[in-house]
């Protein structure tokens, strides 16, 4: 299969009978004919899988991290153990975590999501908690003086003031998840890691596939980062004043 791909011929789904281009014969770094031929059957589906993988991991990670950060915020005693816990998860090397999860959840997307979610917790928990804790005491004092209840203070004062830090954490978590997500293909054929590993496993390393799939992952990360930066600007117009 990989040899066939190098020769520019038969993809996995649709057999082609084109002559391999000079670029492919020389294992060039960027052969556009290969990209055109395999955008539809390889690159695009893998990119879409990768986006789904990331959205789910960051979404679930955010919900869990937010709940943990609220706990750590309300009950200061819980903060050190929760911090240590997210730290502990973050320290486990990805390949080791996959291997240790396989006996429990098998070689599935679930296993990958568990690993990716646990890596987001470290970044998100810390940023959410830092954002909430950084609200100045006199601001809280005035909120109380204005007669706001505890919940109102949280929703109208603490949360908006913490928003820039939370959104910054979300950006870091999203970019990291996209790049760590490529490792997931070690476990199952899923996402942009798949073409990267395919390329690595061809005898001479298929350069075009490696560069294009890796480049797509970087591009996806930078686009996601830029989009979240725009969202942050729109949601927190006051943070621009500083």
């Amino acid at each position: 299969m990989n040899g066939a791909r190098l020769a520019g011929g038969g993809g996995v789904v649709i057999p082609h009978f084109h002559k391999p281009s000079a670029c492919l014969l020389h294992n060039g770094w960027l052969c556009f004919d290969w990209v055109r031929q395999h955008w539809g059957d390889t690159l695009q589906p893998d990119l879409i899988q990768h986006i789904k993988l990331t959205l789910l991991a960051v979404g679930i990670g955010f919900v869990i991290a937010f709940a943990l950060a609220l706990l750590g915020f309300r009950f200061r005693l819980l903060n050190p153990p929760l911090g240590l816990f997210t730290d502990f998860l973050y320290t486990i090397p990805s390949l080791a975590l996959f291997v240790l999860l396989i006996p429990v959840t098998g070689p599935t997307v679930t296993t990958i999501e568990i690993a990716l979610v646990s890596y987001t917790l470290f970044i998100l928990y810390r940023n959410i908690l830092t954002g909430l804790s950084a609200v100045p005491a006199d601001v809280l004092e005035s909120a109380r003086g204005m007669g706001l209840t505890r919940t109102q203070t949280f929703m109208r004062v603490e949360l908006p003031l913490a928003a820039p830090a939370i959104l910054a954490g979300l950006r870091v978590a999203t970019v990291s998840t996209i790049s760590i997500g490529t490792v997931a293909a070690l476990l199952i054929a899923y996402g942009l890691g798949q073409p990267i590993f395919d390329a690595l496993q061809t005898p001479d390393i298929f350069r075009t596939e490696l560069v294009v799939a890796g480049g797509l992952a970087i591009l996806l990360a930078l686009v996601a980062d830029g989009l979240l930066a725009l969202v942050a600007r729109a949601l927190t117009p006051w943070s621009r004043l500083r």
Partner: protein
Amino acid sequence: MILASLFVDAFRFMGNNASLLLSATAELSKLAFASLGIALVIAFPLGLWLGHKHRGLTLALGVSTLGRALPSIALIGVFIAWLGVGFLNVAVALVVLAVPPILTNTYLAVDGVDRDAVDAARGMGLTEAQILLRIELPLGLPLILAGIRIGAVFVIATATIAAVAGVTGGLGDIILNSASYGDAGVVAAALCVSAVAFATAGILGLARGAAFRRMSPNA
């Protein structure tokens, strides 16, 4: 039940193959720590200097985002496809991955040191080098160590995956070869990698805590 017996088997494997696991752990550590060391030599002085001058915020933040966005395996693959498989070629890729967190944290640490403290030191007649070494470095050390820690964890995890690209002899080699070593061997090697990561992160975490306490006024 099956899980428990798998771990029992893994520990039995460790006992029976101690020398194999030790040499694989040593191989992985050599690659990871050599890369981390080179990354430190590059990123630490650069971060200190830029932070001291309060210059290059965009560079520091851009490098950090780009570093996080780089898919580690693709980067290692590019270096191998370009230069061939070899300790040094993989180390170069790992250095590229470890530089951003160290550079950015060192920059932010020094840049963020209380300006009043620096002005006071300058008023007392300290030279720029003295300000950097005696004021900014100690005050920024916790954040700097946090960056080194993130870089270290990242490098250890990636050095394991480097086995995919043909780097042999390390723990990743065992993890990816269940045909030869069995599930017990794979789990045993995964535990060894985790142990290296935890030991490294733990030591750097303790150092960070000590640096932080030393600089807290009410300690």
